[in-house]
């Protein structure tokens, strides 16, 4: 670490020297971007798979094509926050002392909230050294509403937007007369429960909410006792925002209990989950997500996935939004010819960008929330060109909602920094 720091310093001196000599050649110092997510402990699988994806996207889309900003490479610096707010603070300080000014983070809204507060405070006190938060996955609405920040950009639809689509889909199913909601006991889990109940009451007042349960995040050994309650409640379907091990254990317990009802989820695929659910989950597990799954719409995205699989045979492209986020940040850098977070932030506002999937997505300037089409997919082995976990099973998109129909109002009153 120390050596790296010295080299960087040395590079800096070298640049100065070269520039003062009349800028003979462009300095090739890499553009360094931090990726801060759990790389160890309970939720390690999500973080490490995300890291592989962003590293691949940087290499495949930019570094192998001569870099960005006239030849500079992108270097992804991994920081392990163990998905803990405390550890996040420590890693943030490390990022700052390493001179990292762009931080990608996605897992856990609690962590994203901490990071957003920390960054806002830091940026206020350290003008000229600001840090930018690129949130690619934390979906608690508050991050782009009451707690919105100029320095925070979200590249995933938030929970209320997703639940709006999901409950529309559920409302179309006349067979569902009762619903059970179970989630992790933290901000995101509560948002899912409250919002789902609100939407279902509006759209299908006849659906009875027969249970709403919270369990501690990452602490439950065995979900069977919870599933016992679901069974005895007589629910026709389950909604859950669980992710990682909590998701797969819950789904397994539901399947093992012999309960044959649909499960509506946010994160029940990839990183071993699809393989573990296998045949038992077929046609029952539904996911709400952005970037349509099978069939993949464009040749470009297919090639991207194939190239990724060739390099990482045991992983999948689980989060295309990571690629979108990185591409948009790079587009903002190219547009402003700068790596300064303030310039990037201004350029990102109201940016419209066409993804590998051929879709134009929009970053709203008012609250820094992305808008793109949302899709509901089902866990199956039929018509799945790109499977997950090499299991033959994967996601097939069955319901699509265009971006315009996902736009929601925001309560964001953004404090904009003066420069």
């Amino acid at each position, binding site marked *: 670490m120390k050596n790296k720091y010295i080299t960087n310093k040395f590079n800096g001196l070298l640049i100065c020297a070269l520039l003062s000599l009349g800028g003979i050649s462009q300095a090739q110092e890499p553009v360094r971007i931090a990726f801060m997510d759990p790389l160890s402990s309970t939720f390690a699988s999500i973080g490490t798979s995300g890291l592989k994806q962003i590293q691949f996207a940087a290499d495949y889309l930019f570094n192998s094509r001569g870099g960005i900003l006239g030849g500079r490479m992108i270097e992804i610096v991994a920081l392990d926050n163990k998905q803990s707010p405390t550890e996040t603070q420590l890693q943030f300080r490390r990022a700052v002392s390493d001179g990292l000014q762009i931080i990608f983070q996605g897992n856990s809204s609690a962590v994203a909230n901490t990071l957003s507060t920390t960054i806002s405070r830091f940026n206020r006190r350290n003008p000229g050294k600001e840090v930018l938060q690129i949130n690619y996955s934390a979906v608690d609405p508050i991050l782009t509403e009451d707690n919105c920040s100029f320095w925070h950009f979200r590249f995933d639809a938030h929970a209320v937007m997703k639940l709006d689509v999901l409950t529309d889909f559920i409302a179309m199913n006349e067979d569902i007369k009762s619903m059970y909601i179970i989630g992790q006991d933290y901000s995101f889990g509560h948002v899912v429960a409250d919002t789902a109940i609100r939407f279902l009451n509006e759209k299908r007042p006849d659906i009875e909410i027969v249970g709403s349960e919270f369990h501690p995040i990452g602490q439950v050994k065995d979900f069977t006792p919870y599933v016992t309650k679901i*069974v005895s409640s007589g629910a026709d379907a389950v909604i859950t925002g669980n992710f990682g091990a909590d998701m797969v254990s819950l789904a397994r317990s539901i399947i093992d209990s012999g309960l044959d009802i649909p499960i509506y989820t946010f994160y029940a695929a990839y990183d071993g989950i699809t393989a573990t659910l296998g045949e038992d989950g077929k046609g029952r597990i539904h996911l709400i997500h952005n970037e349509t799954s099978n069939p993949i719409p464009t040749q470009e995205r297919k090639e991207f996935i194939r190239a990724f699989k060739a390099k990482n045979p045991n992983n999948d492209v689980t989060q295309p939004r990571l690629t979108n986020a990185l591409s948009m940040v790079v587009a903002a850098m190219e547009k402003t010819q700068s790596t300064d977070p303030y310039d990037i932030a201004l350029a990102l506002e109201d940016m419209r960008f066409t993804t590998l999937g051929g879709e134009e997505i929009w970053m709203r300037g008012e609250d820094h929330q992305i808008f793109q089409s949302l899709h509901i997919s089902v866990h199956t082995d039929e018509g799945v060109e790109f499977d997950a976990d090499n299991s033959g099973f994967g996601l097939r998109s069955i319901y699509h909602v265009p971006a315009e129909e996902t736009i929601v109002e925001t309560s964001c009153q953004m404090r904009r920094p003066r420069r």
Partner: protein
Amino acid sequence: MLEVFIFATLNGVVTGLLLFMLASGLTLIFSMMGVLNFAHASFYMLGAYFAYSISLTMGFWLGLIFAPLIVGVIGAMVERYGLRRVHKSGHVAELVFTFGAAFLIEESIQFFWGPDTKNYQSPDILDFPLFTLFGQEFSAYRGFMILISMSIFIVLFRVLTRSRIGIIIQAAITHPHTVSNLGHNVPLIFMGVFGVGTALAGLAGVIAGPVLTTFPGMAVVLGSIVFVIVVIGGLGSLAGAFIASLLIGLLQSYAIASNVGMPDLLNLLGVSFARDHPLNDLWTVTLPQIAPILPFLLLVLVLIFRPTGLLGKREE
């Protein structure tokens, strides 16, 4: 209501017995060496991963036999070449050693098997409902889990109380020097107990892997609760560990199955609070929500009122 009660009891028994397989080894090791083995739950995880790898090529049943054996041998080696050397430097060093071993095992598992959830499935032959009650199925595999852990308890109890080896082990727990003076090889007994203890943890991992999912966090989730059981049951008491395991398994299961919480209590008392009250979270907490911390509450109570644990004999 009755169905919930019956299934909560069954779930509690399954969890309790599983916890017992871990706690039995831990309590024996503790009473013998005076060392809390922090790596104990890691051996449980190791068991699940070995069994997963074996089951890929040779099926579940061979995994059930070989994985605990491999874990036991690794455990014995850890004792022979690690703990025994550290033993000279006192208990703190031993404690730190097992603490480090836990990290080492977890990281090695991530290194060799990766961080993903492993698709470790129960055998097809047990893939049917044992019985259906009120429309709920109780899977044969869970019945099998009960069977295995009950037989372990009976065998262990008989060996410790009825056999010659058991008598020597029990003597070595309380009077290691006398046993050694009588010509018994106490270090060998220690190694054996450590090996068997870790093998039991491995076996627990083998049978728990398919239902509780096999992933690198599985040791952390179970680790702290096992210590709670050992302390509540009384250090060194096998029967105590058995009672405490079932107690905690049932306690958690009933708490989750219940539907009561602070709102009910407040209604009963005729008190109500506004939704924007600063302590709103406290007034709305429910019993299922706090179920996983109940064992720790029990631990505090036991430590206050009966510091030796339920069946513990040792007075410091």
